[in-house]
């Protein structure tokens, strides 16, 4: 942990970068030590994507048509499933309170935790998506667009999910409540993400959808860590 913190030039103790590096390396180390949880999310993603052809029939044209949407919905559900691991564990064992007391600024370590969550959940899904796309018979261009859209979209899911999961800390009926809060907010990401691959498959340019996703990502990066911090403060009040 100290190695990662001191290797960054800006990482003075108590700075944003130091907090980010500390929380990022800590959460990533934790998920490496328990690879089962990370792999479960990936396995869930692959499994659900495999169930769809069995359910709707193996007609290649139909599969190529629904493929991007199905993969996006699976990514959404997988991102949602891994959300409780983000803050809830640290909340119950008191780590979150200790982090609040640390000299690092709160947006720093909260962003670090969110980034680690994305590396452990969103990134593997993005890397795997072309493989799943092949199952659905998508062509090369659509596969690439799908992967780029997931690369831009899954961080937004992690950021939105972080704010929502921080809001539900200590709430009754946590899991279902989190679904009710997070999934509606995920809808725009789903629309533009699946829209990009659909446009590519229809021979149109996916650039407008990708630009909107990128704009959404910038807005999310700028605003949502602070919303998550406010939510954590409310939870620990």
């Amino acid at each position: 942990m100290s190695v990662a913190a001191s290797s960054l030039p800006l990482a003075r103790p108590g700075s944003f970068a130091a907090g980010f590096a500390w929380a990022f390396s800590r959460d990533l180390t934790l998920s490496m030590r328990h690879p089962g949880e990370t792999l479960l999310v990936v396995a869930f993603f692959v499994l659900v994507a495999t169930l769809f052809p069995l359910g709707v029939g193996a007609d290649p044209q139909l599969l190529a048509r629904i493929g991007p949407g199905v993969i996006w919905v699976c990514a959404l559900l997988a991102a949602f499933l891994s959300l409780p691991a983000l803050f809830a564990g640290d909340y119950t064992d008191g780590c979150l309170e200790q982090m609040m007391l640390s000299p690092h600024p709160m947006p720093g370590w909260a962003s670090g935790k969110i980034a680690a969550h994305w590396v452990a959940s969103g990134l593997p899904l993005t890397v795997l998506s072309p493989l799943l796309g092949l199952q659905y018979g998508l062509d090369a261009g659509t596969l690439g667009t799908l992967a780029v859209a997931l690369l831009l979209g899954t961080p937004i899911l992690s950021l939105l999910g972080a704010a929502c999961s921080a809001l539900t800390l200590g709430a009754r009926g946590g899991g279902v409540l989190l679904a009710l809060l997070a999934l509606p907010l995920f809808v725009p990401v789903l629309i533009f993400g699946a829209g990009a691959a659909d446009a590519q498959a229809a021979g149109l340019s996916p650039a407008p959808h990708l630009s909107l996703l990128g704009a959404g990502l910038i807005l999310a990066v700028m605003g949502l860590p602070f919303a998550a911090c406010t939510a954590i403060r409310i939870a620990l009040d």
Partner: protein
Amino acid sequence: MNFYYFSSPSSFYRLAGAMAPYFFAAAIVTGIAGMYAGFVVAPTDAQQGEVYRVIFIHVPAAWMSMLIYFVMACYGGICLTFNTRLAAMMARALAPTGAMFTFVALWTGAFWGRPTWGTYWVWDARLTSELVLLFLYLGFIALANAFEDPRRGDRAAALLALIGLVNLPIIYFSVQWWNTLHQGSSVSFKGTSMHVAMLWSMLLMAICFWMYAIGAALVRVRTIILERERRTQWVRNLT
């Protein structure tokens, strides 16, 4: 008496009780006038026939669904910034009315869509974003009631309302940004493409819904105040 006198729940309780009947009375009067203008005076539409009269309920309900969310988020912002109790109670009191109007807008829209578009539902940008708004309202209500400590629920729900605010411009501009089945607005500040009686009916119904929403929120906030303050002396003195 200063401006903040009514930010105390006990004084606002009396004010709300005194004001609510007037808002309900205004809602009844404008409602009857709007219905009369809409169902008797306004002519039959040349293209849609009688079905178009759904708009006298549908459009004001859709307006109110967005307006109430905005007001609710403003109360949420006040609650988080100044840590006031009454603002959070008002946000809670508005949420069920807003959810009801959102549902009414979706429901009447579906019944209008069946004869004119030929389908109850399309996955159009405006319909989808309005549905998301309904889920935001439901999430707000669920989150506000999910904690043992009501103040915790107040503040968490207030933050959720502020995050959900990004959906409002998406609903409002969806008919311009995406070229969709749902038509654009017929009413603007520059003028209207409607018959005068139709416009008046719609505006009267909008005022009716507005008055009803305020009245219902005031009645509901009274019960919330009583529930929260049930251990205080002034509530005990009421009985």
